[in-house]
């Protein structure tokens, strides 16, 4: 019962993520953060950001690498946690 519910929930997340790709045409799904940045610049053409990022990834590939790394660190630990918890319960601790 619980297992079926979990499978359905995972499927639901995948569906929610996939629907926009099919119903929204001609969009590159740019980040909402950078859209807000554009709107600010449009509405306030004399606004100058007064501080620049100390370091920026030198390109899309490196940025993707670092985002992936962030997700991997998190996912790696979650996997460890799940294995640890299941094992602990099996050993009756």
């Amino acid at each position, binding site marked *: 019962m619980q297992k079926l519910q979990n499978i359905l929930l995972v499927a639901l997340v995948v569906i929610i993520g996939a629907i926009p790709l099919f*119903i929204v045409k001609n969009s590159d799904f740019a980040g909402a953060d950078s859209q807000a940045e554009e709107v600010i610049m449009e*509405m306030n053409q004399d606004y100058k950001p*007064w501080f620049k990022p100390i370091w920026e990834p030198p390109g899309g590939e490196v940025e993707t690498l670092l985002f992936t790394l962030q997700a991997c660190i998190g996912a790696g630990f979650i996997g460890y946690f799940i294995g640890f918890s299941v094992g602990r319960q099996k050993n009756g601790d």
Partner: protein
Amino acid sequence: MHIMEGFLPVSHAAFWGAASLPFFVIGIRRINQKVSANPRLKLLLALAGAFVFVLSALKLPSVTGSSSHPTGIGLGAILFGPAVMTVLGTIALLFQALLLAHGGITTLGANVFSMAIIGPFVAYYSYKLLSGLKVPAGVAVFVGASLGNLLTYVVTATQLSAAFPQADGGMYAAMLKFMSIFALTQIPLAISEGILTVLIFNFLKKYNLKELKDLNVVEE
């Protein structure tokens, strides 16, 4: 919800920094209290941090044709209380500001306030309220995590409108504009975040029930 580096006027940046700092200090203290009282909780604390790391790295497409991300804050807020997540959320935001040029040092205070203060407070109190009303835990977790995520973005939109009111229509007109960017995009993502949080919560209820009881997350 990341306000980009340099995109808040100095006074606003300073205000949000000052507003966030006390929560961070309280959060550090809460972590020390909880972990020294029960060292077994360290692993669960790390899980809450790891969940933030994964979810905030996933930029998901939304029906508005733009992408945004879950925050992963709700889980830890429900487990450990909101202030603890101020600390863990700040770590994730700092990582993104320094290594990804996502958000920034000058806007850290504002981003912490939305994602790591309002988000966890909304998640925690919605969960507590609903479980007090005897709503099933799964539903309470879903609503808490989803609302925490959604409200985070409402706060971001408010922060930007306060900093950049429109020439005609002022803050209200700006609010409409930023809300249309953030809040609408966020609705399906908030739902996804709620579901993912329920999934991991179901796991914890099965395999880490003792810790959940120690933390007063579940009764009996």
